[in-house]
């Protein structure tokens, strides 16, 4: 509706200024089209600056203001395609005020409000060109060849007012089979160019479909954020949402099982329905129903290592969340049931033998969490803003409860009292936990109780003492204490006295961080103690300490350097053994020119680890030079290449304790030095 005007009244401020647009905001505009708007009156000299925000972009510098007329000329910075909030602000004498909020709609190519396609392709070649070794067992020289790797990606986004489609695919390739994406799973059979992940997303006003890398479930006891390859559909009005989905049992990569649903024995299906029971106040009372059914093969996910099993479960759950207006009191509760079994399909575990069958059992799990803001920004003594929130959490998970979609510790009841708050600049958090296991009181199973108390505190000293000048010299200080104990409640017949848990432990952590212009300094101290008290293990106690220092420094924009040092110790009181690790490392990164960089690091670590009967000293040195060259095209389309050369040297000296004590180490016999030179070349083609 060209020629129409849209007016926004002043908001959140007493300013009488209003803003008028010359074109309808209902109309799609081109990315380069100027936007003209008028103020109801000219700004006075003391009314400050006009600020224009489009989405996350501040475009004020592109606006020309003449009297009451302001024009935004996108020029080199085209308007963002699609729908974006447009906000006008005024900064006057230290105060910000919003004088207009609108929605800007910009069309892209082909009638789409947004249409982008972003390819990326990098070819890299890297390999060993020289190496050497001195001392120790003779090791075969590394393979001196250049191995090519490929990283390719393609993202697209098309958006219209009623539908949006986004796609993304990532590929990884390597000429050397050991570098193939699935070499760990398939060995030499792994494809040399493989699919890392992909996603196709279709969004409509009240529905959404995702295919590829998706995440499923938000019931803590049934299925919680299970991210894998599969499909998910979400639909519903603003007050209700139905989600149906199915994903592979564990995260996968590769071309096989492209949809993620090819193996019925390794798949999880779920459905959930969330409803706002009080539509006028979203969040006031929410109900969520979840049901799931799934089974797993004894196979770990792509970035997972685990002791695996064949498992199957089917369950359902209900959760209720409510809060008072203003969220001062909050409560959520849930109950789930799951029927679980271990199918006899794990041939490595049960093949060829007759095993005792596990019974399929249905068990339940429940939780309740509540929190109440006792003090909400109350001014203590009339000055100090104070917050205090008290919470109680309860959870009970039946023995043998298990769901393939979520990790839950079965056979455990836990109650936690939480305190959260702040006193001025001091942030405080504390909690006390009481837990018990063997809930079915099975005679042959050890029953134990656990108590834990945690206290954490953060103190920004500069803010605390209201220091304005040289505030950076005062650090941010953090402190934390954890006290825990676990003890056996009942003794089964097969347990010896020393098997009956009775342990206390404590951990005290403190740290300080400074940020001084170009300097960064941090200190950390951690002290722990484990006190075993069961018969015959009274002296099986351990004490541990960690002290760490980190210093970083930037020199101009060209050079960064850092130093890290740590001293770790663990004392075994029973054996009178002290295990120590002392480490110091220095690293630097020098951007010689905007296209050349030199990075280096040197690390020395000395470990004394009885009863390995040796002092081990590791010294590592690495230096890497990279140089980027312009290949062709300029600006955003510029293509570049990169060359690097890296020298690395490691030495390991292992001196037996006996020789240390006798001051006559067999020099050279136990020291091994290795060095390598690697080079590489890469082309960033898109």
């Amino acid at each position, binding site marked *: 509706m060209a020629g129409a005007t849209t007016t926004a009244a002043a908001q959140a401020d007493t300013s009488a200024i209003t803003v008028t647009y010359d074109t309808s905001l209902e109309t799609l505009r081109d990315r380069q089209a100027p936007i003209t708007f008028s103020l109801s009156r000219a700004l006075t000299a003391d009314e400050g600056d006009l600020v224009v925000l489009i989405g996350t*972009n*501040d*475009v004020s510098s592109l606006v020309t203001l003449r009297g009451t007329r302001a024009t935004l000329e996108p020029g080199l910075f085209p308007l963002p395609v699609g729908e974006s909030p447009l906000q006008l602000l005024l900064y006057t004498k230290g105060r910000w005020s919003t004088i207009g909020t609108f929605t800007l709609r910009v069309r892209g190519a082909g009638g789409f409000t947004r249409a982008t396609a*972003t390819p990326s392709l*990098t070819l890299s070649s*890297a390999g060993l060109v020289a190496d050497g070794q001195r001392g120790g067992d003779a090791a075969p020289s590394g393979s001196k060849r250049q191995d090519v*790797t490929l*990283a390719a*990606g393609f993202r697209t986004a098309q958006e219209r007012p009623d539908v949006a489609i986004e796609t993304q695919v990532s590929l990884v390739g390597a000429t050397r089979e050991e570098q193939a*994406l699935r070499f760990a799973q398939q060995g030499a059979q792994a494809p040399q160019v493989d699919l890392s*992940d992909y996603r196709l997303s279709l969004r409509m006003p009240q529905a959404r479909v995702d295919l590829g890398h998706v*995440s499923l479930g938000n019931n803590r006891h049934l299925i919680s954020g299970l991210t894998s390859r599969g499909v998910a559909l979400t639909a519903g009005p603003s007050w209700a949402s139905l989600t149906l989905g199915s994903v592979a049992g564990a995260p996968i*990569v590769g071309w096989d099982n492209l949809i993620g649903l090819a193996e019925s024995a390794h798949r999880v299906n779920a459905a959930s329905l969330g409803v706002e029971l009080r539509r006028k106040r979203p969040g006031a009372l929410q109900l969520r129903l979840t049901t799931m059914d799934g089974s797993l093969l*004894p196979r770990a996910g*792509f*970035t997972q*290592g*685990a*002791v695996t*099993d064949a498992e199957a479960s089917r369950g359902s759950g209900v959760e209720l969340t409510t809060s008072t207006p203003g969220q001062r009191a909050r409560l959520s509760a849930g109950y789930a049931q799951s029927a679980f079994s*271990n199918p006899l399909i*794990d041939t*490595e*575990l049960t093949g060829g033998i007759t*095993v*005792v069958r*596990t019974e399929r059992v249905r068990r339940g799990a429940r939780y309740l969490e509540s929190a109440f803001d006792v003090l909400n920004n109350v001014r203590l003594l009339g000055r100090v803003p104070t917050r205090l929130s008290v919470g109680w959490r309860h959870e009970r998970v039946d*023995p*043998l409860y298990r769901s393939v979609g979520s*990790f839950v510790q079965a*056979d455990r009841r836990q109650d936690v009292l939480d305190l959260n708050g*702040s006193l001025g600049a001091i942030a405080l958090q504390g909690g006390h936990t009481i837990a018990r296991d063997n809930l079915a009181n099975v005679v*042959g199973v050890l029953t*134990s109780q656990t108590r834990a108390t945690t206290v954490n505190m953060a103190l920004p000293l*500069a803010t605390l003492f209201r220091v304005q000048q040289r505030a950076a010299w005062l650090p941010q200080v953090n402190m934390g204490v954890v006290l825990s104990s*676990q003890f056996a409640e009942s003794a*089964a017949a*097969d347990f010896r006295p020393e098997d009956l848990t009775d342990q206390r*432990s404590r951990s005290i952590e403190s740290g300080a961080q400074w*940020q001084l212009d170009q*300097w960064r300094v941090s200190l950390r101290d*951690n002290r722990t103690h484990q006190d075993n008290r069961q018969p015959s293990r009274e002296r099986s106690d*351990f004490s541990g300490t960690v002290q*760490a220092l980190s210093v970083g420094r*930037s020199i101009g924009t060209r050079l960064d350097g850092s130093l890290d040092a740590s001293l770790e110790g663990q004392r075994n009181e029973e054996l009178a053994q002290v295990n120590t*690790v002392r480490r110091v*490392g220095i690293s630097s990164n020098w951007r010689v020119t*905007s*296209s050349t960089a030199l990075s280096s690091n040197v690390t020395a670590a000395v470990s004394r680890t009885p*009863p*390995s009967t040796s002092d081990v000293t590791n010294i590592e040195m690495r230096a*890497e030079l*990279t140089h*980027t060259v*312009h290949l062709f095209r300029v*600006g955003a389309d510029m293509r570049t290449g*990169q060359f690097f050369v890296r020298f690395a040297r*490691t030495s390991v000296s292992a001196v037996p304790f006996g020789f240390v004590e006798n001051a006559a180490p067999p020099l050279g016999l136990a020291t091994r030095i290795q060095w390598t030179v*690697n080079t590489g070349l890469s082309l*960033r083609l898109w």
Partner: protein
Amino acid sequence: MRRLTVRTAVLLAGVSLSGVVTAAEAQIRVSPTGVSTNAMAATTVFLTFAGLRNQTAVEAFWCGEIVAATSPDRGTRCNPATLYGRLPLRSDRSTLSAAGVFTDIMSIPASVARRAYQDAQRGERGTFFYVRRFASTTGGPDEFVAVTCRLTGGGANVPFSLTNVTVAFSSTAPVEFVKAGDAPPPIAAQIRYNGTGRLRGRWEVVMPGEERPTDVDLLTEASLPAEQRGRQRRYAQVARFNVLLPPGGSYTLEGPQPSGLPTSTDGAYMVLLRIEATDDRAGDSDPGASGALLHNGAVAGFPMPVLRYVVGSAAPTPESSGTARTLRLLAPRAGTTVEPDSSLIVQWSLDANARFSRVEFQTRDGTVLLSSVVRRGGTSYRVPPILAERAAGQTIRWRVSTLGATGNVTARTAWRELAFAPR
């Protein structure tokens, strides 16, 4: 009595063997002889079998009951009617060391513990057995060696072991693609464990062109026999960790600072989680020969997972320009905490050749909060309050790029962090 205890069974075995060889000469010794295990989840225990003489380990079974082996075999074997399962090949990390010591990593799947628990519910005793068979290489009798497993809640008296480790970027992408010079998303390791103890180790990075780690390199140090410890290949260390894990069962280990991960060179990188052996009384084993206990805290029956990221992509690097030498951030200082209601002004040095400067504000994981273009000659920017709202209490970072006549980047500063004080 349907079930025999280990002590009774060993006595029976000794009686049956009397007159053939003495127990001290022939009996393979296992350490520990009995362990507490998790009744509701997997358990991993480091075992050493000492005293092997011309013998080789064959299979291993879990069962609810043991009986004396049939002569001429020695020891106690599983009652075939009470089998729970056999040690899966995927979990078999056993190795034969020098001096007749056999190292075994017993990874008990949760389904085996479940069978034992259900037996205990039916009134059986709360123990089950792990039995290794050793065959003679010289035609002698087989020897069976049993370890007693007791059912518990997986707490402090269970050997400290890792049973499930997932390493992931916060983005959840299996492989992260990173532009050169940018930081990858934050990394964390979700760890499920038994027992309690210190989790100590290193985050390391395999650089492009370096030899990939083997499965043995990726095992935790406590999963290796004594003579192999300290011999795993090392890579560039980017962070250390040393934390006490209480008897709780799960822990999230924060990864190295994303800005500390190398991204200057194009190519494929691997992030490795290296776990060092620590003291753990419940998991100690006695190899026998030296008389010294071997500490096995943080044993695991699987290689630690690796996380990959690839540096490269289409992002054009800043063009060569002498102006980059002078572009730098001036204020606020790194790590400054500012009041959310204050009038924050960021400042940088003048680049006379720049047509524009772009000021960017992001969260640590790269989410864009605000970006502003400043015309030629501008060296400061007054930040609107919307930044503090969007930051929502997180520490954020900012940088400045200078742009040429075509909008191309001519110079760019490093990121600098700042934070807003709580409201």
